[in-house]
C-alpha cells in the first residue's frame, strides 16, 4: 500500500492509502475534515473543491496518492478559529447561500479567483465559478458575495 506524506492546512500528515482512495475520501474519512463536501461524485458540482499547491481542484477527481508531497488547503484551513473570514462573512451578509452545501467549494474557488484577480468583474466571477453548482440561490447573490468579499480583502 503506498505511503503518502503531505501537508494539510499547514499540518504534516502521513498515511498508508490504497491507490484507489480519492483525495476527498482521505480528507473526510481519514482526516475527519468534513467541511469538504461530496455533492455529485461525478466531477461536476464543485462541492469538493480544495486547493492543491495553491490551485483549486476537485478532490473527488484526484487520487490521494496524487497529492503525495503537496500542500493541501481545505475550507477548515481558510476559516479562522472563531467567526468567519472576510469572504465567508460576505456570503453571510449577501445571502450567498441557502442550504449551504455548495458553499465550501464556492468559497475555495472564489478565494483562488480573488488571489489571481483582486477586483473581478461580474463576468470574471461567473466565468470563475463555472465549475461550482448551486441548486438554491440562482447565483445572483453568490456573485454579489464574491464581489463584496473581494472588496474587503483588497482593503
Amino acid at each position, binding site marked *: 500500500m503506498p505511503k503518502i506524506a503531505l501537508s494539510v492546512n499547514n499540518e504534516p500528515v502521513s498515511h498508508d492509502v490504497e491507490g484507489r482512495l480519492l483525495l476527498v475520501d482521505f480528507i473526510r474519512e481519514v482526516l475527519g475534515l468534513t467541511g469538504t463536501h461530496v455533492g455529485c461524485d461525478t*466531477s461536476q458540482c*464543485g462541492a469538493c473543491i480544495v486547493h492543491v499547491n495553491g490551485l483549486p481542484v476537485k478532490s473527488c477527481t484526484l487520487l490521494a496518492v496524487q497529492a503525495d508531497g503537496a500542500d493541501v488547503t481545505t475550507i477548515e484551513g481558510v476559516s479562522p478559529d472563531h467567526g468567519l473570514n472576510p469572504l465567508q462573512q460576505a456570503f453571510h451578509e449577501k445571502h450567498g447561500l441557502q442550504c449551504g452545501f455548495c458553499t465550501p467549494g464556492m468559497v475555495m*474557488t472564489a478565494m*483562488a479567483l480573488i488571489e489571481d484577480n483582486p477586483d473581478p468583474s461580474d463576468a470574471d466571477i461567473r466565468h470563475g465559478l463555472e465549475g461550482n453548482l448551486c441548486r438554491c440561490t440562482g447565483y445572483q447573490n453568490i456573485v454579489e458575495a464574491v464581489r463584496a468579499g473581494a472588496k474587503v480583502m483588497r482593503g
Partner: protein
Amino acid sequence: MQDFEYQKPKTIAEAGDAFNAQSDGSFLAGGQTLIPVLKQGLAMPSGLIDLSGIEDLQGITVTGASLSIGAMTTHARVAASPEVQKAIPALAGLAGGIGDPQVRNRGTLGGSLANNDPSADYPAAVLALSAAVVTDKRRIPADEFFTGMFETALDEGELITGVEFPVAERAAYAKFANPASRYAMAGVFVARVDGAVRVAVTGAGPGVFRVAEMEAALNKDFQAEALKGIAVPEADLLADIHASAGYRAHLIGVMAGRAVDAANANGGAA
C-alpha cells in the same frame, strides 16, 4: 473503484517499462476523464502510471515558427502562458475555455489528445493548425492522428510527449459550449498557416473533422461572408439530448463565421 498498482516514474523510459510490466496498464495524465471512468467501473486497469513526475513532459518553448508544448502541460498553464498568448493567442484562448477552472488546473494537452473525446477542444486546434503529435516513438501529423470517436493512431503503450504547433498567420476558435458540461456542441478552429486555410470542427460529429468546402472558400477570400451557403451534411453529425444534427450543422456555420471574424479582428484571441 477496483484497486490497482500505482506508479510514478521519473522518466519517459521508466514510464514505458512500467506500462509493459502491467497486464493492463494505463497512463494517468491529469485524470479529469480517466478518474471518473475508473469510478464508474468503465475501466479497471491493473496499474496506473502517473506521468506527473516526468520533467521532460512539461513546458512550453517557442523556436522560430514553431510552438512546442509538453504533453503534461495543464490547460491553465497554456492559457496563462505569455509565450502561447504571443505566438498563437487563439490556442491560449481555447485552453482558457476548456471545462472549468478546476479541470484546467489538472487536465493536460496530452491527456486530451490521447482520449480524443469527440467534444474536446484541443483536437480542433491540433487539426486546424496542422500540428504534429510527438510521441516516444515518432511524430504523427494531425491529419493521421485522429482516427475516430475516442480513437487515435497511438499504438498500445505509445506515449505522447508533446505537440509542435506551427505559428499561424491568423487563427481563432469559436465554441458553442454545452452550458452544463462546457464541452463543445460545435467548436470551429480556423487557421491560416503559410497562406493555407484549414477549418476543423469538434463537438458536432463523431470525431474532429475538416471542412474542405469552407477551406476552399476562405483560401479565396478570408472573410465570414465567403462561408455563406456552405452547409455540412447533417447525416454525418451527432444527434443527442443536447442538440439535433440539424442544429449542430447550423452551429458549425455560425461558429465558423465568428472564428473568421475573430481571426481578422484581433489576430485570433477569440
